[in-house]
Every structure is written in C-alpha cells, then in structure tokens.
C-alpha cells in the first residue's frame, strides 16, 4: 500500500510518498520512502500549489493517483489540500514522523520558517504536550533568514560563519524588526560577521529553548524542520538545551510529511 503526506508550510510544500514494505514476520508495519521528495516554492494560491506539488511528486515516483490509498495533510495550509483524506496539526505529524526515525525520542523541537515548537512525545509517537512561539517569528527560521540578509550572507554561510566565533553577544530584542536594528548597530560597531551570526543564532536558540522548556526537556531530543540545515543553530540549540545529543534526521524538512503519510497508512488498518 502506498500513502502520501503533504506538509503545506508557510514557505515550502513538502510531499512524501511511502510504500508499506510489509516485511514478512515483522510485528509492525514498516515503510520506506517510495521515491520522491519535492520541495516546492509556496504560492499564494495554495490549492493550486498543493495540486502541482502532488502531481510532480507522483510523476517523480512514477505513480498514478489511484495508486495512492490516502493522503494526509499538515502545515499552516493543511485545510487547503482538497485531495487529502484528512488533515492533522503540525504537532501530531511532527511527533509521528520524528518517532518513526527515532523511536526513543521523547522531545521534538520543530523549527520551520514560520513557527518554532516544542513537542512532548509518548512511546507511541503521539504528542502529549506542546508549546509554540506566538505571533512572533523571533524563535523561527524566518528570523534567522532576515538576519542573514542583514549580514549579506546566504543561509549556509550564515550558519557556518557562526561556528568560527566563540564570543557571546546578547541580543535583547524580542522582535525581528528590532533585532535587525541591533544587528545593524553591531555592523556599525565593526563587530565581525561571525560574532554577529553567532549572536543571532544564540538568540533564536535561546527563544526556542525557553519554549521547549515549557513542555519539559526529556531525552532523547530530536530537531526537525528546515533549521536543522543551519549548523550554527544546531550547535547553539544543543548548548542552550544542555543535552549531549540532538538527533538530526537526514531530511529534516520532510519529517512532518512522513508523519502524515504514516498516519494515512495507519488510518487504513
């Protein structure tokens, strides 16, 4: 059986198609990524964007619509996915997906473009508590993105630059707009870019950590979402959370879509 998961994020759409390998003698169902992972630029017309992302994913996987038993959707635009059999929140999808990759995980930190969230997960991969940033991007990926623009670095360079610094410069602003002013002030004060990059990522990590502490930090801890690609953020978050290890999936931005596909499969049993 093949099922699909679509994560309608604020910046990108992620589609995953999974096939049940149905390994003989295995007590549990197992799934493998079928083929395609499409990262799709978000469009204002979300219905159309979802439709196109899904069509591209099917084409890449060599599948027809009728081959897919069910699709579940998640993300900020989940209600716009007309072809989805059901929609679940980012907490449920992220928890299920992270537990699939790391069965021992009990705390999931999900930092995407629009929102950062901490999710407490039980052994079955269900969320038991969650906390998220509110109407503010200061604990999310778009904050880091805005700050990297101010430093005229691309996101990869931004993360890597921060690793070259061991200075601690506190950033006090709680708001992206004011934080940008702080960054500009640091630039004017001839502060090295590496130090500013570290200061920004320390600030994002600190806010994420404060949020995750609301639900409690229980090991194992996994980080999912696009910010996993930012090596500086990973280092900063690990330090802020004071954990020995952060479990990092290979395709961090697809974890919630995988969670959806798993939930879609489970709904068929």
């Amino acid at each position, binding site marked *: 059986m093949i099922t699909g998961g679509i994560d309608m994020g604020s910046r990108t759409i992620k589609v995953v198609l999974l096939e049940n390998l149905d390994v003989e003698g295995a007590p549990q169902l197992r799934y493998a990524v079928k083929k395609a992972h499409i990262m799709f630029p978000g469009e204002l017309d979300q219905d159309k964007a979802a439709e196109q992302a899904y069509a591209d994913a099917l084409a890449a996987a060599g599948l027809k619509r009728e081959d897919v038993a069910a699709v579940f959707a998640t993300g900020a635009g989940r209600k716009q996915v007309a072809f989805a059999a059901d929609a679940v*929140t980012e*907490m449920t999808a992220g928890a299920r997906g992270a537990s699939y990759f790391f069965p021992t995980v009990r705390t999931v930190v999900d930092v995407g473009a629009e929102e950062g969230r901490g999710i407490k997960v039980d052994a079955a991969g269900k*969320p038991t*508590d969650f*906390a998220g940033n509110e109407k503010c991007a200061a604990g999310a990926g778009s904050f880091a993105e805005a700050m990297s623009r101010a430093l005229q670095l691309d996101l990869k360079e931004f993360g890597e630059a921060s690793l070259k610094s061991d200075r601690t410069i506190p950033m006090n602003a709680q708001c992206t707009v004011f934080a940008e002013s702080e960054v500009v002030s640091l630039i004017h004060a001839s502060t090295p870019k590496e130090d500013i990059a570290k200061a920004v990522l320390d600030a994002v990590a600190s806010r994420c950590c404060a949020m995750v502490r*609301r639900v409690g930090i229980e090991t194992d801890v996994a980080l999912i979402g696009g910010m996993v690609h930012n090596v500086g953020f990973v280092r900063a978050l690990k330090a802020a959370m004071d954990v020995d290890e952060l479990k990092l999936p290979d395709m961090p931005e697809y974890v919630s879509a995988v969670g959806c596909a798993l939930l879609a499969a489970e709904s068929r049993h």
Partner: protein
Amino acid sequence: MNATAKYPTEPLKLWKKAKELRDQYYLNYAKAKDNGGLRWSGSAWALDAIPAGLGDDVYSLTSEPYAASIAHDRKFAKVCMDAAESYGFARDLCSYMRIYWGGMHLNKYLFGGPFPKPDFIFQTQICCSHSKWYQHVAKYEKVPDFYLDVGVGPYKTLDKDRLDFVVNQLHDSIEWMEKVTGRKYDDEKLIAAVKNEMRSTSLWADICAQNKAVPAPLDEKTMYSLYVLATLQKSSKWCADFYAELLDEVKDRVARGIAAVPNERCRVISDTQPPWGFLKVFRYLETYGAVSVGSLYTFGLEGIWEDKPDGSWGARTTPMDQGIEIKDRDTALRLYADWNLSKPQWQHFYDPQLKTEMMLRIVREWKVNGVMLHLNRGCEGLSLGIMENRLGLSRAGVPVMTFEGNMGDEREFDEVRTQARVDGFMEQLGLRKLAA
C-alpha cells in the same frame, strides 16, 4: 437533536432578562442626573455596597465590564484605543484602561450620547493598573477620588490587624463620601447592600458549582453574559434576586439533564478574560464536542467560595445563613471586608501557587480534561504568574494549551493561529472534529 448530539439542550429562559438588566444598568448611569442622582465610577472589584449608603439614586459605572462591552464592538474599541494612544499612553497598558480612557477623551458613551461624567471615584487597588487608571480619570474629569488598599495578603493568612487595616479605610471612605457629596450616610442602606452582595456572590458561586454536572448546564460563553451582572452591581437587590432565579433554573437543567452543548464529550476550562471580540473561539471548541465549563476567572472574579465539609468547593455560607445579625456599621464593614478578602481572584496576586491549587481543584471537581490558558497581553494583573500555573498544571498531569491574545485589543489576537492551537490541543486530547 442533530446527529452528534448526546444530550438534550434548550435556551436559557432567563437569558433575555439578563440582557435587559444589563442594558438598564448602563441606562441608569447615563440618566442618573435627570432626577438629581449621583454617579460614581470604579472597577468591578470596587466595594460597591459602600456608596449604596448614600441613597437609592446612586449609580455606578464599573469600568472593566464597560470596556469589555466596547471590546466586543471591535470598531469602536479601536477608535477608543487610538484616542488613548494619541493622548500619549503606551499600547502595552491594560486594554480595558485604554478603551475607557479613549471613550472618556472622545466624550462618547457606548450606549449613546456623551460620556457620563462621574461625581466621584471609589476604587480598590490590588491590581497595579487600577489606581493609575482612576488617577487619570480624576485629574481629567476634575472629580474627587478615594482608593482602598486591599493588598493585605492571602485570605488564609488574614488576621485581626490586617482586617482592621481594611475596615478602618472603609470607615474613612464613608466619612469622605459624606464630605464630597454633601449627603448624609444611611447605615440601613449599607447593611441592606452588604447583605445583597453576600447573597449575589454566594449565589453566583452556587450557580458555577452546578456545572460540576455532566453534561454541563452552562457553557462559559453563556456564563460571561451572566456573571457580568455581579461585576456591574453585586450589592443591588436586582442582582441578588436575579441570581436566585437563575440558580433555580440551572438546578432544574441539571435535574433534567439539559446540556449547554448537546455534543459534550470533553470538558475544558479557560483562564483570564477571553478575547472579547473573538468569543467564537468557544463555538469552535464545540466542533470537537468540547465545552468550556468555566474558569477560575468566571467562578472567582465575583463568586465567593468556601471548603465544604465533604472537602468540595462550594458557595460560601453567608453570615445571614449562619444566624449572624448585622445591626451596625462596624459589624457590616467588618463582615463585608472579610467576605471580599476571600475572593479567589485576589489570592494569586500574592502567589501563583495559590491559583494553581484552585485550578487543580476545579479540574478535579468539575471533571475537566484540559486547560486553555489565555496569555492575555491586555491584563497584567490576571496574567501574572500564568506560566507558573502552566507548569503546575502540567506537573500534575493536566493537559494545557496556551494561546496569546488580548481581552480588548484585537491587534494582539490571531484568530487563525488560535484555531490552529485549538486543533493541536484537541488532537492531544484524542479528539477529532465531529461531523457537521
């Protein structure tokens, strides 16, 4: 009954009367001067039995429920807040206060006509915004003001000295009122008002206690329109009499199994004032079969409670029901101060743990499945320590969600994101949306 209904439901018979009493209250204030009456203004926590001794033609405007009414009218609320902010007040101050000030500066009354000027201000101070609020009003309107310091610590630590501190101020306030109004104070009217308030607030607690029943006879959105009468004039006979009638009706609903939400399958409580312009959040809960059965806010802002012999939380027994006679001013003031100092919503100003304990008690006794905490940017007083409450509830194993907003300032509320939070919380509680 629709397809998902588990219980019968029917409208509240007293609904219309509650609305009429509320409208009459605001009309009375506006027209107080027509027959030579007096107007005073203060918060919903002002000890309103005290001015009652000045006569039957003394009318109040309690500012938080008035501002909440404006907040429901989002357009006018914005105009009022713009006016206050244009005057130079910061946007992060109490949103009720900004709305009230804005209406005063614009000289516009929500119920029509110019903003009615009070003759005097009579205010308690336990919330830090309360006294500053009326300090500005008194200066702007050029009216005399009196503030009662009721911050004497948690009720469980109340002793004679602390009680005397409040009682002595009440005596002073009466002398002050006689002086600024030129009226002779009537102790019989005071005693009647004190008794009315004790009846009102005990009856309201009893009404809330009926919601321990499954299904809940009242939902919180409805309760907002009922508790408000106590925030207007709890020392009035009309308020006490209305609650006596309401208690009968709610008890009857419990006896007949009448539900507020016919598809009730999950019970939650909220916390602090809701975002008044977006009460539809409570209707959104119902799409999951979830009902908010109340909150410490709706129960304890005006309800007065006590520990019952069986260990449960119930309406506080009035001195009258204990056979205590109230014959003179000092006895009335002493009992009245003691009564108000036991108000649940005053306790957590001293220690958030006290609030957590009361919330846990509500969770247990009202059979609550989860708690929705409103991180209310509009009210520092009631949001004080709220994250400690979250921690305490979580540690006790109670599922909690938070959402950020503002009781009066819609610019700080994100409806879509809040609904997304509710979706997540409902999933956490194992609920999916019910078929329409």
